[in-house]
């Protein structure tokens, strides 16, 4: 497979969130505002890329029976690094993300990419694959957060966009709306890519 195709595929046509329905768990709650969504997306990108790289380097040395435990240890270590980094340099965002940083460990995208890609491919390819899937995830997160912050509080990144005439619709800030927005994104995406539709 070509490297560039590897990179662009997970961004749209084979997006991990809206096509493979992975990693919804820890993601939707951080989409109330754009800033935490962006930080969360980048954290997941970092973890996915480097866990793919490490597991790809280790792939010939780890017996397949104990690979799950090895993967969890690698992923958990990377997540601890991210968590400590956020606490040190971006304390406010880290407070907003609360337990969701820890939940990157159980994010199916990370585990799924290691299992599906890194264990059978060369380190550099795996790194690019992890990076691309992380960006695909971050893209959806930012898209949802864009709608929720714009219509929920009339702001983007905390700056006022819609003026006084707009009454913020606080329903957008409640959890159910994140689900409905992602449902609509899937709807649009599958109307364009007809081959993904279920019979």
């Amino acid at each position, binding site marked *: 497979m070509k490297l560039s195709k590897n990179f662009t595929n997970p961004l749209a046509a084979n997006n991990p969130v809206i096509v493979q329905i992975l990693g919804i768990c820890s993601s939707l709650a951080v989409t109330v505002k754009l800033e935490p969504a962006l930080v969360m997306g980048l954290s997941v990108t970092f973890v996915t890329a480097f866990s793919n790289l490490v597991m790809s380097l280790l792939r010939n040395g780890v017996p397949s029976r104990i690979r799950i435990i090895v993967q969890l240890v690698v992923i*958990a270590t990377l997540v601890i690094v991210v968590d400590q980094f956020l606490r040190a340099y971006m304390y406010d965002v880290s407070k907003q993300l609360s337990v969701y940083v820890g939940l990157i460990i159980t994010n199916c995208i990370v585990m799924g990419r290691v299992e599906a890609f890194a264990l059978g491919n060369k380190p550099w390819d795996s790194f690019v694959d992890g990076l691309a899937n992380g960006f695909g995830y971050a893209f959806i997160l930012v898209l949802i957060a864009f709608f929720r912050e714009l219509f929920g509080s009339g702001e983007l990144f905390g700056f006022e966009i819609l003026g006084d005439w707009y009454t913020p619709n606080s329903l957008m800030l409640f959890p159910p709306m*994140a689900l*409905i927005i992602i449902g609509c994104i899937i709807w649009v995406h599958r109307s364009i890519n007809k081959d993904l539709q279920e019979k």
Partner: protein
Amino acid sequence: MLNLLINSVFIENMVFAYFFGMCSYIAVSKSVKTAIGLGAAVTFVQVMTVPLNYLIDQYVLKDSALVEGVDLSFLSFIIFIAVIAAFTQLVEMVVEKFSPSLYNQLGIFLPLIAVNCAIMGGSLFMQQMIGTEINTVGDSIVYGFGSGAGWWLAIVMMAAIREKIEYSHIPAAMKGPGIAFIITGLMGMAFMIFSGIQL
């Protein structure tokens, strides 16, 4: 303690308020029978791992718990996930032995309980609630049961709705995950009525 139970089942429902365990929630909610089986397994793992992690947190990880002046709490992610993974392995072996048909139905999702965010999220929330809502082992058992049962309730309701929706006309692009997200969003709105309860 009753407050904690009602709170964790209805008001802070794992699925509707925090989106935990969405991956298996969307994928396994196609038939009620499978959903009941997975829900029971998740609740069981939750009831066992939350108190276990509570004890580990109190006697090993907390500041000055093991050695005077040493704070090991940065290790909590890796310890919690190890406990959960070990326990899932146990449940998997038990289910395989006593109910092979259920084992075949659940397929890949049984080992994936280990990376189910609901379980990890339960333990991480429990860690945050120490000192406020959770003060004893009993509290942590109740919280583990409540959050597991809330997830169980959600997935069974979802499966029941999806069994019926098979017969309705929905846009082709919405079939499968799209409509599942929208339904979950609407159910989440229904569950928001509980948030008005003063305990």
